[in-house]
């Protein structure tokens, strides 16, 4: 490794590091590691970080990849089963549009308080986090209540035929995600009122919001399939 490479990779203390370097994307922390004799001293680095810099962000992303794969495969199963019958749905009317569409709109609106909570966390604004997390929690509970009614408007049972089975599987899995993330938000919300708090909890708020986005946006293809595939096909 040449000296120049070392400098660029942040392993070498260099006055030029303070000036804007060729590596504009270098994270702020990289400039804070200083060479002292044989040591690369990291004392001055921050102790937590937001977004893709943090470990928790990557773990959340991994979880989203897994859950996204499950949703995608279940949707594939839906169309696979549909390809085997002449009439779809085989014997029942499609799900009623009103409740499902209302829930979809509600979910889309609920992204707003999640974004505000994330933004407040990145400012380390405890009051803002408390406010917007509380609103997010309220939204998630409201969403769950509407979801409970939605099951009554699917117009099919899980044990009536394969169509009913796959619709209930899609709805059940998505509801499970709503439930776990609602509980997650609630716990984090309580923690922000009771403490003990530390820097990384603000990162957790960001990751919690990111997971809520996933729960909302993964609903859109499920909504389209459950409510519109029986009508358009």
């Amino acid at each position, binding site marked *: *490794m040449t000296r120049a490479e070392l400098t660029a*990779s*942040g*392993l*070498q203390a260099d006055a030029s590091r303070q000036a804007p370097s060729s590596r504009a994307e270098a*994270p702020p*922390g*990289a400039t804070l*590691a200083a*060479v*002292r*004799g*044989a*040591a*690369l*001293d*990291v004392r*001055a*680095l*921050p*102790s*937590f*970080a*937001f977004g*893709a*810099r*943090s*470990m928790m962000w*990557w*773990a959340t992303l*991994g979880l989203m*990849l*897994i*859950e996204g*794969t*499950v949703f995608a*495969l279940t949707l594939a*199963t839906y169309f*696979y*089963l549909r390809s*085997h*019958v002449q009439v779809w749905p085989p014997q029942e009317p499609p799900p009623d549009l009103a409740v499902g569409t209302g829930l979809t709109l509600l979910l889309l609106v609920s992204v707003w308080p999640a974004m505000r909570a994330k933004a407040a966390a990145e400012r*380390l604004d*405890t009051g803002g986090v408390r406010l917007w997390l509380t609103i997010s929690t309220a939204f998630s509970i409201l969403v769950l209540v509407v979801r409970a009614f939605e099951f009554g408007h699917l117009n099919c049972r*899980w*044990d009536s*035929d*394969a*169509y*009913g089975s796959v619709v209930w*599987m899609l709805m059940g899995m998505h509801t499970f995600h709503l439930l776990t993330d609602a*509980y997650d938000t609630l716990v984090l919300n309580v*923690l922000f009122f009771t*403490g*003990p*708090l*530390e*820097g*990384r*909890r603000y990162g957790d708020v960001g990751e919690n919001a990111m997971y809520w986005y996933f729960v909302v946006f993964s609903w859109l293809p499920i909504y389209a399939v459950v409510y519109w595939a029986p009508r358009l096909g």
Partner: protein
Amino acid sequence: MTLRDAAAPVDVNDVPPSPDQVRSLVRTWSDPPGWLGWISALNHKTIGKRFLCTAFGFFILGGLLAAAMRLQLARPRNHLVGPDLYDQLFTMHGTTMMFLFAVPVMQAVSIYLVPLMVGSRTIAFPRMNAFAYWIYLFGGAMLYVAFALDIGPDAGWFAYVPLSGPDYSPGKRVDFWAQMITFTELSGLLEAIILIVTVFKLRAPGMTLNRVPLFTWSMLVTAFMVIFAMPSVMLASTALITDRLVGTHFYNPAEGGDALLWQHLFWFFGHPEVYMIFIPGLGFVSTIVPTFSRRPIHGYPAMVIALIATAFLAFGLWVHHMFATNVPELGKGFFTAVSMMIAIPTAVQIWCWIATLWTGRLNFRTPLLFVLAFFFILLMGGMTGLMLAAVPLDLQVHDTYFVVAHLHYVLFGGAVFPLFGAVYYWFPKYTGRLMSEKLGRWNFWLMFIGFNVAFFPMHLLGLAGMPRRVYTYPDMQGWGRLNAISTAGALLLVVSVALFLVNVWRSRRHGEVAGNNPWGGATLEWATTSPPPAHNFDAIPVVYSRDPLWDGAPREGQPSHVGGLAVGQREVLVTTLLDAEPDHRPVMPNPSPWPFLGAIATTILFIGSIFTPWAVVWGMVPVAITLTAWFWPRKRDAAAHLALEQQP
């Protein structure tokens, strides 16, 4: 923002660390004593060893089941075991080897080694790591308890419907199988995330992505495969269990379901799974070959690209398990082509290994012997794989012993031989002592000969028409002699594994003392003591090369190690994804019994749901309680973290 009240002085490590600092590090990173400490243990080396021992325990159990089957098949019209027990034997053997041994054992090795190889004090998310271990242990134990109570699964390790459905498999046998899937896949998926984050974020500074050791690369690729493949089998088995328990109709043709749906979902996981087993094996080979050739690997970038290419292709060939079904013929042609394409990245890797060996100065120790056997056996399995990828030939030998021979050549040759080589290679790192070379050679030759004697005749038996999964066969078929030979080979394998266990048992106390780096390896795990201290490295090394122990010495003015990490808290250095630049320094969690209790609660939910669907509802309550208690920060910990806090 009043996170931090006062800047209390914090003890951080110097380079080199003082003896006081090292003592403090050991205290900080050790698992607590006592039985509570035992269930609270988080150190990745502790969990990695438990994981490895458990996986080998299942390997031995699965092997004994296989030996029982071989004894039954040794001669025609044998009545050692009856058909019902035989069905359970082959199902338990396949299930154990695939779900409880082959995938978990690779993850177990990497839990121990990857943090050392990337120069980290710990694995990412140590509590989740402990949780994943307990889930795996409880799931495997559940399956064996069921087997002991004569409710072991009996529908084959891939549990095809309609045989495994509610009509043809009443009772609870298949439900235990389906929930075993839930346990092991949950554990496997969590481990995949843990491993990816460890490799992405916890590498020592300077270990850019193109300096990551090849074994670590192979586990990274495997982890991504796990993420995209395991959801498929979880969905398949969940749909199976709801078909069986609450009357859904996913696989019931009478109500619009479809039996082939199972095969698609299962093999969309099942074929990549073969590569999840095989790719870590490639990682072992790519580690052992350079060390015993005493030169860096030839063609590192080609090796990495070949691993990634293999992983991609692995998702495009699941239908070659379904050539005997009514999928469209044109589609089969596509899957034949992709199956053949796998040979390309494999050939690239074999080329690089041969080039490395050819130009190296070979050191013929036991690990290298296992690797050389891998070449031979894998090549044989690969050849029959190419044959099976052709639709007409596959139709002829489908469900015969030819397939049994092929899959054992691929899996035993591709994974178990490299794994045994890996155990001989890294045993000194785990225990501080070398395994006996003499017993190792006996172990190796008995295994090599025993394996070929056991499995080669199965090719011929398959071509002669002997079907899989029959508990016996009549005299007139003339299969008796080859079956007797095969059984003799299986017994040699049993002896060889027994010798291996003796070797492990004796060497851990009486083996030759190894020192830090007995083989002259190039990767960072050899930079620390054997066995490593609780904190892995007294100071985190700074990396300047792909082979840091061979040509990675820092030059004048370059730092050799990381300084300034707290010694009284579990502080680690997080680096950036591509270039491993120092980024921030979070504190890892302290030992806690909650992951263990959370695993117990989850186990109650999973097993309860075999008997009543309502268990999913009431079982959630203890799960939520334990997981919340796990997450909830302790005042003392938070205060200690605040003392180290520095805002971004």
